């Protein structure tokens, strides 16, 4: 298998090096850039499969670079930033980035996100078009109604029967918030009484299986004080 090339961009050389070492350990080929312009230069000359991009950089910041890259290329971009607020994340994602990781990051988590983005990017064409009608999809989350399997970025996830039912219910109505009682009644098919805990425990388990960082879920979210939903992406 050919090595995937990843471009790491940050004005802090130590961070770039640390990320590079980790990526090389995972078997990727790494290119380094230390500002936005350099990154754009490399991207236009080299064949690259993924970019890890810092926001606050000299010459050209990460958000402008993202916009520039998106004008031509569809390669996954993971933004790496010290800005941790929701508004910063939303801004980064709306500029065309695929993921947003806050500094200081967990190396394992970053590696997982890189893998997941690459999988999704490289296997996008694999999805059988004819089967689309039987697929429930939300971002990298894909539920096949026929084979009753769930894949995250192409990687199959093993779920119990109850968990599968919950995911199916939530994925049929992405974005809709389900209270615990409704989930219970429709999945367990029993009248619901004090089921918050039961449902929440299942939700948490599903999250641990499908989310890279269950503390900051991307797909399956708790709407505090209201219910649960799968994000419509």
């Amino acid at each position, binding site marked *: 298998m050919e090595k995937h090339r990843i471009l790491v961009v940050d004005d802090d050389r130590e961070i770039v090096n*640390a990320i590079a070492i*980790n990526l090389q350990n995972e078997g990727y080929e790494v290119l380094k850039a230390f500002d936005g312009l350099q990154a754009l230069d490399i991207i236009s000359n080299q064949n690259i499969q993924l970019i890890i991009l810092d926001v606050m950089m000299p010459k050209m910041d990460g958000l402008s670079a993202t916009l520039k890259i998106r004008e031509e290329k569809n390669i996954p971009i993971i933004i790496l930033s*010290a800005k941790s607020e929701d508004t910063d994340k939303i801004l980064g994602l709306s500029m065309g980035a695929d993921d947003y990781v806050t500094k*200081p990051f967990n190396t394992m988590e970053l590696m997982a996100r890189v893998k997941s983005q690459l999988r999704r990017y490289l296997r996008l064409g694999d999805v059988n078009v004819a089967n689309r009608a039987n697929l429930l999809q939300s971002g990298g989350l894909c539920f096949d109604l026929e084979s009753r399997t769930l894949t995250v970025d192409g990687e199959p996830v093993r779920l119990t029967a109850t968990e599968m039912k919950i995911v199916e219910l939530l994925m049929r109505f992405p974005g809709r918030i389900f209270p615990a009682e409704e989930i219970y009644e429709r999945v367990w098919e029993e009248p619901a009484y004090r089921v918050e*805990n039961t449902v929440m425990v299942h939700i*948490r388990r599903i999250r641990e299986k499908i989310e890279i960082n269950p503390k900051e879920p991307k797909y399956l979210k708790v709407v505090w*004080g209201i*219910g649960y939903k799968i994000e419509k992406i």
Partner: protein
Amino acid sequence: MDTKLKKSKPFTAWICFFLGVSIITGLLISVFITLGHSRGNWDVLQDPFIDYRESIAFKQRTADYYGQLFSLAAASSSYGASYIDATINSLDDEGINLKYYAVNKKNNFLVQNITSKPSSLSDSGKMPALPAGYNYFWYFDGQKLREIDHGKVIDIKRLDSVYPRELLDYSFNRAPAGDYSDVQVLLAVRDNLVKNPYAYSKYYGDQQFLSIIGWICIGLLVLGLLLLVFAIINRPSKREYDRKLASWMGRMWLEVKLLLSLLFLVPWGIFGIRLFPGWGDNWFNRVLGIAWVVCIIIACLWWFYLILIDLIVNRQKFFTHNLLNSFLSWYRKHEKRYPWQNSMLKRAYMLVGAEAVLAIISVVFLLAASGSGGLALLPALLIAGAGIYLIYRYLKRYDETISDLGSLMDHIELIKNGDMTTKLEIAEDADIYPAVQNLNSIQEGMDIAVTEMMKSERMKIDLISNVSHDLKTPLTSIISYVDLLNKEDGLPEHVNDYIKILAQKSEHLKNLIQDLFDLSKASSNNLPLDMEKIDLPRLVKQTLADMEEPIAASGLVFRVNTPDEPVYITSDGKKLYRILENLIMNALKYSLAGSRVFIDLIVDRNEVTVTIKNTANYEMTFEEDEILQRFVRGDKSRSSEGSGLGLSIAQTFTEICGGSFSVKIDGDLFKVELRFKTESAN
């Protein structure tokens, strides 16, 4: 030079207007007086422009002389010698311009200055013989009066003109009625009137005066019209000066104006006729008399013109600028020297005093009025009116002050509610103006202070944001390399231990920075909120389920008591989760092993309270509010994990989410209470 001319242009225009109107009005008045004197005979106006012989003045003069002579002859016996002499003297003043002859055969009366052939006059009915150059004469032959001009006889009775006939009637009327057959009277006027070197000839004077007065009048008329036309062309300039005059007039008190008006009116109304010196015999006196009347009328006219423009320009000020108001404004200035409460009281006392004085004066005048008739009634009424006006002004002022006080109180309320920009506008002469000004400057000061505070708060936030960013970047490297070290194989055991400690501490530092950042943002209200309708018991249950693992690992028993039906509040769910998470983590960390943690959710009317109670695993030696201070931890040793910001974050977040947060300590019992306002279910 140029500017000076421009400056004086309004004055010039106004003076032209003044002179033009004065001259034309004067001429009109003179004409009316003349017409009035001639009893409406318009022909009198032609006199200056026709031959003197044809003029009414000549005929009037002749008729006058003739009447005097005739009455002398007709009733000579009834007059004294001195009267006869005086009459003859006045005829003789004409000198050679007048020849007369009057005879009454009945009592042998004869006066004459015709020396030639007196005898020829003795025949009744015969024309008297006259020297050459006297071709105009009046002659009564005992039967009939004739006016003869160059031999042409004009029957006076047949004259179309009313004027001489009436005069004639008047002349005859002066003589006693009766038989005049013995009377013959002749009066002849010289063809060429000459000056009498010894006395004043009225004929000659009349001729001279009439020959020039017409041209003078026409000249004046033309001049007046020209001036008026000039003034009309320069109307704006004239109006400008009108306004200037009005502003001068405006400085005059109303009372003075009224008094002056009265002074102008009284002589005209009461003494006007008497002031007219009469229609003198002498043209000079006559002109002087007319000029006098004209001057009085024109002066009145201009006075009322001034009053009129004053009224038009100054409007209400015309009435409000009076003695009473000036006194009141003087008093107002005067009372400003005293402290506010003194001046307010003093004002009330002054009113009572002034009213008393006015009442007494009024009563005195009333008593005088009952004695002297109605004349003193007017001042009594005026003084009573002034008293009522004073009360009105006092009450009006009182009303204004009360309403100003009201708006002052409203404004204080406004400031209390945080409005720092709206200024209270109030009349500068209001009683509470200084207080309002002070309040406004206090407000301004507060506004500046608040703005400064907000600015420094914002700077603090920026600082914290930047610092946290600058802290995070090196920390990222630390964590990354510690992680790389961690993966390194074949290191000695003790090095692995060191690396583990490094990993723990850098993780701790990361949490601390994030907590600090969140807290600073929240406590400066810079945290965006996502307010929603939330079921609070559900949120508590979700949080507990979410934290199931650490709870189970702690070995503590949780006693949760929440209502089954939803309790809705409007808040930010994520923040509420963070609050509960922090509080539960706190309880897990500091609870006595094996003890129970109680979580109760109680609804009381429109308030819901969440209580978390746990038994501390150490002695709580701090005050309740001390624990809420940032970085304060229950255990002073600071041995455990955590930033020490957990409770502070919980408190700050609760407050920005619209709730209230309190901590109670009772022995080993640590109790946190969160209170929120409930929403109705729909």
